């Protein structure tokens, strides 16, 4: 299992050809109180860099971009029922969706956890 991060503050946990995607602790902290989240439905085809999900805090609405391409296996129903779960546990229970990777090569060039945490400190 390997975890990657993007400069758009998403994390991708890869197991075989399956990836779980969410937003980083830094992202939830920056957004503040999250009041709405919408994960993609199973079966939807995601394209790297295109909209995949929506997250809204009291102050702002944001799109979550697909960090990798592939077919959605499962959206997390818990984030729609209790969006604050993303604030409480962004890199665990607050995951957004699982996707079957169509091109593992897309993972090349993403940051590992150490590189991401170091980079965030420079922001």
């Amino acid at each position, binding site marked *: 299992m390997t975890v990657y991060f993007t*400069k*758009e*503050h*998403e994390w991708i946990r890869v197991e075989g050809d399956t990836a779980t995607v969410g*937003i980083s602790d830094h*992202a939830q902290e*920056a*957004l*503040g*109180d999250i*009041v*709405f989240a*919408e994960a993609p439905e199973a079966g939807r085809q995601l394209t790297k860099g295109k909209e995949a999900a*929506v*997250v*809204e805090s*009291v*102050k*702002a*609405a*944001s*799109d*979550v*971009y697909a960090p990798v391409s592939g077919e959605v296996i499962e959206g997390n129903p818990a984030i*729609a029922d209790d*969006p604050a779960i993303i604030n409480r546990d962004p890199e665990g229970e607050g995951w957004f969706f699982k996707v079957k990777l169509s091109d593992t090569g897309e993972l090349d060039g993403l940051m590992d956890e150490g590189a991401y945490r170091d980079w965030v400190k420079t*922001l």
Partner: protein
Amino acid sequence: MSKEVHNGPTDETQARGTPYSGDPQGGAGTEQPTLDKLPLDSWHREHGGRMVPFAGYEMPVQYEGIIAEHLWTRENAGLFDVSHMGQLLIHGRDADSALEKLLPGDLQALGDMKPKYSLLLEENGGIVDDLMITRRGADFYMVVNGATKDGDIDYLRRRLPGEVIVDYMKELALLALQGPRAAEVLETIIPGVGDLTFMQGGPFAWQGHNLWISRSGYTGEDGYEISVPAAAAADLADAIVAHEAAKPIGLGARDSLRLEAGLPLYGHDIDAETTPVMAGLNFAINKRRRADGGFAGALRILAELENGAAQTRVGFDVEGRQPVREGALVLDGEGNEVGRITSGGFSPSLQRPIAMGYVATSLAPIGTPLKLEQRGKLFDAKVAAMPFVPHRYYRKGAA
């Protein structure tokens, strides 16, 4: 992740190009205007305030979190720094009748030390700003919005006769203490404030400093606005938050509180394109001024009072959980655009989305079903009574 839509008075915090917007350049290359510092700048930072650009200042958008701060203010007492607002003293011969040419309030009959909500108007009836004005003896104390104060001062100086002087009292800070425990907290620091009733003010002294305090605010709760010399503001803020019922509250909760209270925000819900009648602010024009006119925009405004305005400001209950924000369109049952959302968001007290905006007056009755369109998505909504959360002002004989 990228921010797309922003909300309310803290727009600038969410502008594209901030480090959190997904712009890898972090906004490099975009011009950053110089920001002024509030008298309490370092106080906010010491108390964990997240500072953002607003109205030309760095201001705290939140401390511990907007929802927690919002609910704290509804249950206890919240301390807001609103020193970005302009505190003006207007004085000189016949200042009242001179001001009445620009404002629709009855300033000649205005009781001493009784703040009144009023509006600075354009000749075409549009709103230059909304404000609070208080007669203090022969002078008028006026509090105007932060983002508009420079324009207001220019407008007042240009339009008032030479013998009426507009002083911008830069050396004063302005704090607001709001919430059901505000009186209990402030009375321990400044004895006597508990005797004020809603929309009543007075001079007070604290540790040798002259204060001006009125029982008023922008949250729908009981509370006070406190004008204090900038040099003493941090000490006073310390004394207030030393009370276990008081906490500092940021701009984010200020916006969600005033939205629940149904109060318009200048630059969003009212502006130069809206009139007092469209905005439902008819109460700011009293009987004598309606009969006599003689204020900027009277021609249009008196006609609208008589016949109604084409558009009206209303509240909306929005179905579902997703906030519908400023800029969303209002559609009728046939999909025609009949208005626009001017403020909207998630109500922490009601735990659901609420909004405010304009619709064709024929569609303004409470309960009218309408659709809202935001980023290509349709939402069911109904025209709702405002305030969304009842006001709890401290009125004479009420407590």
